[in-house]
């Protein structure tokens, strides 16, 4: 690793705190601009004026905006995102409870999306212009065009209501609820760790529909990018060299053409994983999946400001970290960037 590469890598890591600061500032400003009065939310609608004044001072809302921001930052540094009005728990606790379900859903979805999307993109590029290529193109454009909530609802209608081959909404059947003690918070994993196979299969079957819906959403993106990268790579002179060496088609395709895009693809996959957070917000709402997306939309409808801002901030943070990983993967893995 050369000095300049180290410097660039450090620079991209160093820009993260700045972006994070901006992220916090944006959420803070959104919070202050909210039409809901946080004092009334805490003290109640009919609180006497002196109580309202006291709560206002306690919250630091009588101070100038920069001071308020400093206080907010101070609380964040202590991991304090305030209390949720809806659950009356600290927001950090809530998020810790809801986040694993999102992680479970998104991880299963990204694995499905990669396993299907990457080979589709590679073969479509290899047979560019063929009927197969056209079908892949339409399927992936459709995936980028279909609203996730419509797809989710239609899947529920067809596979749950009409065919009866998929379970309904939620993370597990009501009968099994609360049987598995939370370890990681990811129900399927916890059930496996406990050796509770009934719960495992039940939770697993609940995971199928939402993760497939979510996977289609990012599979479309992965396929498109893989195809575009592969077409570019297959046009490279080194592919002519590989053919001139007498290599087999499979070896040319995977070792030489795909080998050249693997690192860039890792970047795309990290971004796709981050993009799943967005899809997860809607998918969770449709499937009543108890993840951070459901928490966020629930808090929105209840005008629960701390919860909304906390969830937004956490999702932003995860997104930021995944973007950073994508960037680092590129810098550290590709021999050409050295």
């Amino acid at each position, binding site marked *: 690793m050369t000095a300049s590469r180290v410097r660039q890598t450090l620079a991209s890591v160093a820009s993260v705190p700045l972006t994070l600061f901006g992220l916090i500032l944006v959420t803070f400003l959104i919070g202050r601009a909210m039409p809901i009065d946080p004092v009334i939310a805490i003290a109640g609608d009919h609180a006497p004026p002196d109580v309202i004044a006291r709560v206002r001072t306690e919250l630091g809302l009588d101070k100038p905006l920069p001071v308020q921001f400093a206080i907010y930052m101070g609380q964040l540094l202590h991991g304090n995102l305030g209390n949720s009005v809806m659950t009356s728990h600290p927001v950090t606790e809530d998020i810790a409870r809801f986040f694993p379900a999102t992680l479970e859903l998104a991880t299963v979805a990204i694995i499905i999306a990669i396993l299907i999307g990457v080979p589709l993109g590679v073969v479509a590029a290899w047979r560019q212009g063929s009927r197969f290529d056209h079908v892949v193109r339409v399927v992936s454009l459709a995936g980028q065009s279909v609203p996730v909530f419509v797809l989710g609802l239609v899947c529920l209608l067809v596979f749950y209501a009409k065919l009866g081959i998929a379970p309904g909404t939620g993370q597990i059947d009501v009968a099994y609820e609360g049987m598995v003690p939370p370890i990681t918070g990811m129900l399927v994993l916890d059930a496996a760790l406990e050796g509770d196979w009934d719960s495992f299969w039940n939770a697993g079957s609940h995971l199928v529909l939402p993760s497939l819906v979510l996977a289609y959403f990012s599979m479309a993106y992965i396929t498109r990018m893989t195809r575009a990268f592969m077409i570019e790579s297959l046009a490279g002179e080194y592919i002519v060299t590989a053919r001139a060496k007498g290599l087999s088609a499979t070896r040319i395709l995977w070792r030489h053409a795909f080998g050249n895009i693997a690192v860039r693809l890792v970047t795309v996959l990290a971004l796709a994983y981050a993009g799943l957070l967005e899809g997860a917000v809607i998918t969770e709402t449709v499937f009543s999946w108890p993840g951070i997306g459901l928490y966020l939309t629930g808090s929105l409808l209840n005008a629960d400001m701390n919860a909304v801002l906390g969830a*937004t901030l956490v999702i932003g943070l995860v997104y930021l970290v995944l973007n950073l990983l994508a960037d680092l993967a590129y810098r550290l893995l590709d021999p050409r960037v050295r």
Partner: protein
Amino acid sequence: MTALSTYLSRDWLLSETPSSRTHAAWVRRYRGWLQFRGNGLAMVGLITVIVMIVASLAAPLLAFQDPSAQDLAGRLAPPSAAHWFGTDELGRDIYARILYGGRVTLGMVVAVVLLVAPIGLAVGCIAGYFGGIVDRALMRLTDVFLAFPRLVLALAFVAALKPGITSAVIAIALTAWPPYARLARAETLTVRNTDYIAAVRMTGARSGRIILRHIVPLCVSSVIVRVTLDMSGIILTAAALGFLGMGAQPPLPEWGTMIASSRAYILEQWWVPTIPGIAIFIASLAFNLLGDGMRDVLDPRQR
């Protein structure tokens, strides 16, 4: 008369040896059009988009019925001759509501694009042209906005502003401009140090003028491609906001909102929420097909 027919002839438009700059430009455009026309999917997209625009503009003529006229006795009726797509939970004609909903959706898309493209262009061109600290500051700003998933940031904005169609447009615009800024900056960087910009600078032109007259026009074609491809994203985000109760509010016939309010009937009267869903899908797919074809012609590098 003869002159005009020369100009409109295929040979003139396909000439290998154009006689003037205008001629060359027309040859290029015609070749682009031929390439676009050869792409069946892109043509399907173009025609669907045109039909959609015409249908929403002519909604009062095509709808036969008032989209907000309630008929509680005939609620949740299946599709029939009187109600082509059936009626919703308040007995309103779904066909009419879909047509008027197209107006809402396309209106939101146009509003967002009109807000976003100038902001993105301005930020990107200024950052790219001046470089240095200006560039770094502006790019850090775009990074902050890119650091949120679009829908999540839009949700937070709408919550701060108060749910409604105006807030939704502003929120989507606030989350949609960063990619345009990045694009415009990249294009600006490639021309900033060229000789002809240096020549313009030597005539004493001021920076504002150089950016407006010489740099912005160069970014326009890639921005157009990006806008077309972005349309479907805007449609989906607007619909998702509506679905989550944060966008257009009932009784406005916005497609996402229509799904939200009839979601409970998915199992029994499945067509009530499904038909607006199909409308969203078709609109978004049409723009994707169109943008995809345009990109192949205008900007093969960008994928």
